[in-house]
């Protein structure tokens, strides 16, 4: 009986990996139809590099602390010229990737404004990842943060940063 219980426990542990789930963020064909695209792909290496270039005060310092220990940040955001240019089934296919450890924290449904779902990969009390799905008739945005992120700290960021530095010829490098 004890051997059976040990074996069962090992099977359960193997079935719920401690490593973060890999989520596919490909949306074939959408970038070509979109008027505006935001595509951010930052793995752990790039996040460590970015941290070296973040400022030492204010929101940049806060962000530097927040990304410490994260394994990745991914954003896909598409804006379209007209309603109905993207297939909501693609969003549902994306959502269906999220396994049983993912819990919905907040869901906002509106006919006139953004619909937003915030889901967290819960391992006990700890958040191991975050997915934010925001949809409007002409835009959808998916944010995937891999690792332990403090949602409350995220909501307190003021959003006036992010002004990119530019090269001498005026292009963003």
């Amino acid at each position, binding site marked *: 009986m004890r051997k059976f219980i040990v074996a069962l426990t090992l099977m359960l542990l193997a079935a719920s990996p401690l490593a973060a789930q890999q989520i596919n963020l490909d949306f074939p064909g959408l970038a070509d139809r979109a008027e*505006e695209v935001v595509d951010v792909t930052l793995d752990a290496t790039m996040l460590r590099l970015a941290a070296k270039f973040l400022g030492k005060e204010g929101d940049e310092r806060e962000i530097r602390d927040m990304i410490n220990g994260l394994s990745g940040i991914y954003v896909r955001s598409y804006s379209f010229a007209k309603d109905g240019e993207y297939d909501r089934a693609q969003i549902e296919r994306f959502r269906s990737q999220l396994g049983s450890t993912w819990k919905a924290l907040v869901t906002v449904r509106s006919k006139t404004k953004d619909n937003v779902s915030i889901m967290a990969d819960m391992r006990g009390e700890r958040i191991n990842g975050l997915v934010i799905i925001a949809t409007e008739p002409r835009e959808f945005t998916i944010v995937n943060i891999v690792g332990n992120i403090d949602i409350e700290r995220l909501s307190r960021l003021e959003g006036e940063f*992010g002004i990119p530095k530019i090269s001498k010829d005026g292009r963003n490098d």
Partner: protein
Amino acid sequence: MTAIVPEALQFPTAFARAQSGDHDAFAELVGKHEAMVYSLAWNFFGDRSKAEEIAQDVFLQLYRHLESIESDSHLLFWLRQVTTRRCIDQLRRARFKIVSLEHAEDVAASPRVADPLLDRRLKAMVQELPELQRAVVTLRYQEDLDPSEICGIVGMPVNTVKSHLHRALQALRRKLEKHP
């Protein structure tokens, strides 16, 4: 061996002196560009105190990032870009706040007026445009920039800029036709 001296070092402009910590030189820079920065925000929001606040924020940000500016032309580009993006950011954040009915009524009650007040009407109409169209129109007609210059400032492909400009002008024409 001849040393290669970067452009900024050849001319002791206000910009170069400001970079070395000269506050008077920085004030000179502010004076040179304040109308441009202030007007971008003023034409975007139609609110003088908000425009002043944004303009001050932009120059404060400039002061903190002066060492990353490489030339006078880079400075001009940086100021336009930072101001425009701050305006867009602020408008997007304000979108989620509840708009008071009083304010909504003021916007709706733009007077149907004859030519002498056309400038004010046009400004008000521009301020009703979605944020990206508003930014593109302001950069085009306040700063006289063409789409290839605007695209770097707002971070969009040039065709997208042209598309926003086209739709904005269409929207403004329709409004003018509706309320002659």
